[in-house]
């Protein structure tokens, strides 16, 4: 296999973390909403925690993106 082809396959594989980030974000927002519908008065004060969890989870996907960019453009 040519090195160029392996590079593109590697970059494609490095986008797999998107699946994990998608599942994680769905869990966070889903659980936040189900909690917020049960107890709407407590929803507002838990919003910063939800956004923080969103950012921490999103990082997994972005790390995959960064690795894909490094594979595509740095090598």
């Amino acid at each position: 296999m040519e090195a160029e082809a392996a590079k593109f396959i590697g970059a494609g594989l490095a986008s797999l973390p998107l699946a994990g980030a998608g599942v994680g974000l769905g869990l966070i927002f889903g659980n936040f909403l189900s909690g917020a519908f049960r107890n709407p008065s407590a929803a507002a004060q838990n919003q910063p925690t939800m956004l923080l969890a969103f950012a921490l989870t999103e990082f997994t996907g972005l790390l995959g993106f960064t690795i894909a960019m490094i594979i595509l453009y740095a090598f």
Partner: protein
Amino acid sequence: MLDRLITPFAAGPMEQFEIFPIVPLSLGGLDISLTNSAVWMLIGSGAIIAFFFMATRRAGLIPNRVQSTAEVLYEFVSDLVRDTIGTEGRKFFPYVFTLFLWILIANLFGLIPSLPGTPAATHVFTTTSHLIVTLSLALLTIFIVLVYGLWKNGAKFFKLFAPSGVPIWLMPVLVPVEVISFLSRPLSLAIRLFANMFAGHVILKLFAGFIVSLLGAGGAFMVFGIAPLLGAIAVTALEFLVAALQAYIFAILTCIYLRDAAHAADH
């Protein structure tokens, strides 16, 4: 007409991140040129200073529109610092406020569209889309956390890596994990902001490229250009959310790390 519209956008999605000197300068063999990145940092800092100068120039008991915007921003970060670090966090408020505003303005100014056909030197540049900028901010934060933690707690600061109430046989596993987690903090802070800005701008440019190539294809294909146009509008709206959210996340994580440093001895 169409050619003039297309040409500036025909560049690939990576050209927008190119740094080039506007005023070439060098100091003892060191390249200290005023680059487009530096120019946009100065514009951002200048805008913040001008905004707060305007807001506080005729400050009154009944605030006008500019003053109340400034007050909302101030109270937002002030509440954030107080809720996260506590009352002893007051001394970190200026740092967190500066960090928040600088990142917010850098992110938002990066969303200003460039005029087509103008030279590259006048194009809008997102300073936070470069890893070195965000890494500098993250390292500054971690440096402050380390210095403050060691100054306040002394050697007890290292209890951060060995929480009390954990069985002793777990320590050989837990301590390396805690150390690695602490060391990855500046990296994760930096990469989060950088990758969000970078990915957002690449996606915007890709959608813009789709519109242009569909318009260039001519005939019936031009109708399909409406789809990426709608996509570009949606992504632009999302980018405004991301720009504000990432500034907030950077500020809140800085606060959390400072709280850890302040209360390291209580662990």
